[in-house]
């Protein structure tokens, strides 16, 4: 079965779908606002002010002049509180980013440092930063330093871990190739750092949001310096008049908008600075126009991680079929003489040609060797093979993935999830977020007439094959072979 939709029509359809998402978001916002306004007008209560009252109060507070502020933070001058929050956020986030990225790079680049320090890092990051507040105000004098310390402590872990993982995921080939270049050690490290920019920026984006959250939290704990935290949680108390609740709502609205702006700014910066960002955008395009997407764009998507997850998330109605799983065979004894197999109920007739087409490929074979080599000295390993097909809501196959899983590597609960029939590998191992890393082993074109059953098209079809490795605590645990039809 092939799509009857023309490429142009599909692209236009994709644009319409995207535009409609924006319109729907706006409509939802307007409906919520209308409901709120109805409640405020038809059932007057001091707890639900009208939107007009909130906006009028915010604009009035925004215009309070400077001289009322110099007397202290007790003023409701909104611009002052926004500036305080932004200033504290900028200082705290900058320090956290500096520490997080530097320490993350150090932990990522040196395996010894990683192994020695990881337990302590995990111990410290498990501490909710808010519980440090009593200690900070007891030990550190003043208002400024404890507030900044709270922001730094809470925000730096995400950036540290994302940087560390990004460094650990630099392809080994990149290390190998740069070893022969005419570069100083510093230049080589700067060059290698460019491979991990996408991960570092993802960490900075998350860290920025967390830092803003903690800035407002710290301002609630420490009202002496003002800020949006003060405006929301303390300021209303200073004016027990009818505007008290209005200011709480207004402060919350401003805080949310500030967070939205910070996220938007980082997202824009990331698109401009990080080369790999384009591939992530490509995956969105894939989700909108899979049947006609350009070959090059699919190749770009295949360089990213969690393709199947992205398809599931963005298509919404993606159907997942687990074709086959859970019959272990042993590596390496039986790898080369795999017997064709069928599902227990005999319904999956495509399984036999799949084995012939895929299992014996030299590419796959060499990767299986790689798993065996890298992992440890055991010669026998239980491998579970798992085949999955993702289909678009209209039933058109999007992706075929075959995974080989070193099942013994995973805790029992993950092994149980692997036998679930409605989850992708990515969704399953997400639970082990901090221990998991992805390594893309490469992709290539493949013309095959063996798996045309899967893609529901007769005769040879052009596919893009991608191999990737999921590592658990830096050891190969799952090898995934994916096929996408361009």
């Amino acid at each position, binding site marked *: 079965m092939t799509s009857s939709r023309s490429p142009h029509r599909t692209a236009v359809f994709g644009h319409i779908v995207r535009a409609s998402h924006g319109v729907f978001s706006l409509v939802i916002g307007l409906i919520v606002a209308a409901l709120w306004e109805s409640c405020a007008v038809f059932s007057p209560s001091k707890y639900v002010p009208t939107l007009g009252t909130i906006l009028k109060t915010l604009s009035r507070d925004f215009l309070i002049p400077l001289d009322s502020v110099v007397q202290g933070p007790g003023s409701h001058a909104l611009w002052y509180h926004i500036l305080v929050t932004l200033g504290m956020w900028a200082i705290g986030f900058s320090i956290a980013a500096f520490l997080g990225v530097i320490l993350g790079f150090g932990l990522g680049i040196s395996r010894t440092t990683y192994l020695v320090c990881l337990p302590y890092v995990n111990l410290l990051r498990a501490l909710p930063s808010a519980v440090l507040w009593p200690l900070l105000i007891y030990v550190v004098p003043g208002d400024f330093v404890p507030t900044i310390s709270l922001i730094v402590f809470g925000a730096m872990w995400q950036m540290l871990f994302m940087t560390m993982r990004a460094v650990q995921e630099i392809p080994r080939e990149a290390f*190998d190739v740069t070893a*022969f270049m005419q570069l100083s050690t510093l230049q080589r490290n700067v060059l290698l750092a460019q491979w991990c920019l996408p991960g570092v920026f993802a960490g900075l984006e998350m860290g920025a949001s967390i830092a803003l959250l903690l800035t407002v939290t710290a301002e609630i704990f420490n009202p002496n310096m003002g800020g949006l935290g003060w405006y929301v949680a303390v300021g209303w108390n200073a004016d027990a008049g009818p505007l008290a609740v209005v200011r709480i709502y207004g402060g919350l609205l401003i805080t949310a908008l500030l967070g939205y702006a910070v996220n938007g700014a980082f997202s824009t910066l990331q698109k401009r600075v990080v080369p790999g960002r384009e591939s992530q955008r490509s995956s969105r395009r894939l989700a909108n126009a899979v049947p006609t997407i350009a070959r*090059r764009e699919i190749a770009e998507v295949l*360089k990213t991680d969690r393709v199947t997850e992205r398809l599931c998330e963005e298509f919404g109605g993606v159907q997942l079929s687990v074709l086959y799983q859970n019959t272990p065979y042993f590596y390496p004894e039986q790898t080369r003489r795999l017997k064709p197999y069928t599902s227990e109920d005999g319904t999956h007739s495509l399984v036999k040609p799949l084995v012939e087409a895929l299992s014996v490929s030299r590419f796959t*074979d*060499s990767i299986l060797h790689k798993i065996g080599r890298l992992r440890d000295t055991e010669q026998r390993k239980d491998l579970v093979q798992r085949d999955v097909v993702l289909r678009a809501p209209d039933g058109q196959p999007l992706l075929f993935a075959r995974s080989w899983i070193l099942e013994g590597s995973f805790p029992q609960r993950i092994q149980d999830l692997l036998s679930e029939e409605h989850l992708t590998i990515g969704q399953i191992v997400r639970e082990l977020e901090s221990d998991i890393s992805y390594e893309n082993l490469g992709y290539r074109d493949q013309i095959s007439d063996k798996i045309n059953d899967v893609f529901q098209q007769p005769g040879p079809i052009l596919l893009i094959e991608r191999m990737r490795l999921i590592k658990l605590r830096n050891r190969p645990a799952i090898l995934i072979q994916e096929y996408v039809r361009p």
Partner: protein
Amino acid sequence: MLRVQDLCFWYDTRDLPVLYNTTFALEEGQIVSVVGSSGCGKSTLLQICSGLMHDHISRFPESGHFMTGSVLWKNLPLTGPIREFGYVPQHYSGTLLRGKTALDNVLLAVKEDGISPEERERAESLMTHSGIWEQKDSKIEHLSGGQQQRVAICRALITQPGVVFMDEPFANLDDSLKPGMSRLLRDFMTELHLKLSVLLVTHDKRHAHEISNEIVELTERHGMPSSNVQSMRGPRHD
């Protein structure tokens, strides 16, 4: 130039060696191909000859890797990667920097003291011979797999190495492109007069025969896991 003598290598000394008493030599201007079945140690041999394995063992002594025998470069023992070598990995695409142009990627390897006009000329010459000069300003992610591979090769050659190590240079190419790649390597050596030797690993014996002066075949014998060496002359005897 490069001499491998009685090389044995174990990934773990509790296992059988991956390479066993391997001996061969690579002379100036030669192309030597290492062939053999999957898992017989071809890539391992390439990593040892290029010094990458020495570097890996010194950085990760806990890995358990162990080797005996010697790898000599100009009669001196090799202790790690050196700048007189160039390297093109099998999975070259991961080593190219996205967001940068093809020319930028080629020149990555020579940026220690800034890029000299000679280096820029050399880049132009290499890329012209590779047929990718017209794409010099294209972002690397916009090039095809074959073009990216040529960028990786040009980058390895820009430093004027004495030896280039290539891991499966044909693996990611269509059959129609493979002869072109063979010609390209020869062109670099003849038309550009590069004093270059090439040690390449491939599973493709046919192309190995077409391109090589000498072929080193890693073979299993008497139940040994791999790799006694059987050398044979290729069709080229320049």
